[in-house]
């Protein structure tokens, strides 16, 4: 009997039901299947389907400042966690020979990896940074890209955020750092957030307008592990304060006069224009601890403590619309943890909005909180992993080759404003400086 031939659109319907690894293997079936599976239309269809099955990526505790071996990074579907929180989640190991680096973000299944090392030459010392895009599902990795050097060897100088410019479909890294700026006629100086953008496929970093407010992550009060900038559908968002505010270590947030001083500064990755978004009107009291921006159910969310007693989570239903902030949760701290521990990061909210996965900063554990019975279950993981720096992830077939092999990322030029005394062209032999835990403060 002659086999009935199945048209392409029906083949794709079947393929989308297979595991990603299985789909990739079937590229070997024939030339047309190979082309079909590599086709952007099929890849987008797969991404849409795969987004229904969100994963979390957990990273190990950094041994060296701001980097960890990729072989110890783990990923698993959230559904596994929600089905049975009491089981031990061992996760999938990322097999990789990539070495030590840091994941600065994830978008469409691509992870942006940050590598950095301290180097010493005969007459100079600097830190070199470079980036890669990595698709752990297809095991594809891009060439090194966006390399630059900075005479400041502290590993935490820059706050990097990874995102996608939706209009051009290109991936970008935003680098934010704190610089001193003169204010007015007087000789007073303020901190300001200097911003540079790197587009994968381009060879240089571009300086854009500075952040109009000062992102709280640059103020470095108490806690330095909060997500650097929050990427949401083509925008990078920071919680910010007016430039003149200088909260001091010893006073914490009490030096902030009123809650209205907090705003969200949102950078559109296509237009590279900032907009200000106001926080919920119900947020009218300066919190005791640093509030946090994050994403739940594809919406920008804002979490803060209320008088140190309750933990409050808001969701902005329509991006940019202050009126659309709605309160999702209001939980007594004592209910979710035995000890009073205020730095919490909501990681995931189930589709029905009842079950919340919540990371705790202090001990780097996570709990599952159920809204209905107000029950709390601890999540246990076999390895020591940082729940507080969890990254949302979906499996995808998207290629890390952003343009057709014409880029030469290793010869990246550095914008002259990028770094004060940076080494532009390296002629001396450079020696990598071995870094240990004691070398730098992370």
């Amino acid at each position: 009997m002659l086999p009935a031939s199945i048209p392409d659109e029906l083949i794709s319907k079947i393929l989308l039901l297979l595991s990603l690894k299985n789909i990739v293997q079937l590229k070997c079936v024939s030339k047309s299947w190979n082309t079909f599976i590599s086709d952007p239309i099929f890849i987008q269809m797969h991404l849409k389907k795969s987004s229904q099955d969100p994963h979390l990526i957990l990273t190990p505790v950094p041994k060296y400042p701001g980097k960890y071996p990729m072989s110890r990074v783990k990923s698993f579907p959230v559904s596994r966690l929600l089905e049975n929180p009491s089981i031990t989640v061992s996760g999938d190991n990322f097999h990789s020979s990539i070495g030590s680096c840091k994941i600065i973000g994830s978008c469409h299944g691509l992870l942006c990896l940050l590598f950095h090392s301290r180097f010493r030459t005969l007459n100079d010392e600097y830190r070199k940074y470079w980036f890669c895009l990595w698709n752990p599902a297809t095991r594809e990795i891009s060439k090194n890209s966006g390399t630059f050097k900075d005479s400041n060897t502290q590993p935490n100088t820059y706050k990097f955020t990874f995102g996608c410019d939706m209009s051009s479909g290109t991936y970008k890294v935003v680098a934010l750092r704190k610089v001193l700026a003169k204010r007015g006629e007087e000789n007073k100086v303020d901190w300001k957030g200097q911003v540079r953008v790197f587009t994968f496929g381009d060879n240089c970093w571009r300086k854009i307008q500075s952040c109009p407010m000062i992102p709280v992550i640059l103020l470095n009060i108490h806690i330095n592990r909060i997500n650097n900038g929050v990427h949401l559908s083509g925008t990078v968002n920071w919680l910010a304060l007016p430039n003149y505010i200088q909260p001091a270590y010893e006073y914490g947030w009490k030096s902030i006069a009123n809650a209205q001083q907090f705003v969200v500064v949102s950078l559109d990755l296509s237009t590279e224009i900032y907009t200000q978004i106001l926080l919920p009107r119900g947020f009218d009291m300066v919190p005791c601890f640093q509030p946090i921006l994050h994403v739940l159910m594809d919406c920008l969310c804002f979490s803060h403590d209320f008088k140190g007693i309750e933990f409050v989570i808001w969701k902005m239903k329509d991006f940019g619309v202050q009126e659309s902030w709605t309160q999702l949760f209001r939980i007594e701290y004592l209910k979710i943890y035995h000890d009073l521990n205020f730095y919490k990061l909501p990681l995931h909210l189930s589709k029905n909005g009842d079950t919340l996965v919540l990371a705790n900063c202090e001990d780097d554990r996570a709990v599952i909180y159920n809204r209905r019975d107000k029950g709390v279950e601890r999540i246990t993981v076999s390895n020591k992993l940082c729940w507080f720096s969890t990254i949302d992830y979906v499996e995808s077939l998207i290629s890390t080759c952003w343009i057709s092999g014409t880029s030469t990322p290793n010869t990246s030029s550095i914008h002259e404003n990028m770094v004060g005394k940076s080494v532009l062209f390296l002629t001396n032999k450079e020696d990598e400086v071995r870094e240990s835990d004691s070398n730098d403060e992370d």
Partner: protein
Amino acid sequence: MAEEVSSQMNSLSISETNPSSSATISLVSGDDIVFKVEPTIAKEMETVQSFIDETDGKITTIPLPNISSHDLPYVIEYCEKSIAGKITKEFEAEFVKKLNNEEVKELFLAANYLNIKKLLDFLSQVIADRIANKSVEYVRRYFGIENDFTPEEEAKLREELAWTFTGVDPDDEDEN
């Protein structure tokens, strides 16, 4: 095979004697066999229903040249269960047990032609389950696809994708 068809025909001729038979829809298979079905069944088949609607219900005999008299009873059976709200995991498992690979594919194409979403989704899953973690050769045979790679091209691609070849199940005996 012929016996199977006639037994299906018998069961269908019972519905022909049904008092409400005046309102039935006649579906004519590619090999010219007429199947009388209730209008509610036709509603499940979007292609058939839109044909009826276009002619304001005047035409109740619908030719389905792409569907054989062997496949049509299966489609009708599935639609009947669907209307009765009796599509259970058990029914689906029994339903698919009777079908060999070739029949599954034919029904899949029929479901697509008739635009029966539920059946199409169900059969997509059946096919996916049957090819999941099978060898590339098995999938080629399953879909009747000719390997147009040169041996060198295929070897190179297999080497690149070597990591996907772990955990492939041994091929079943091909049924067709």
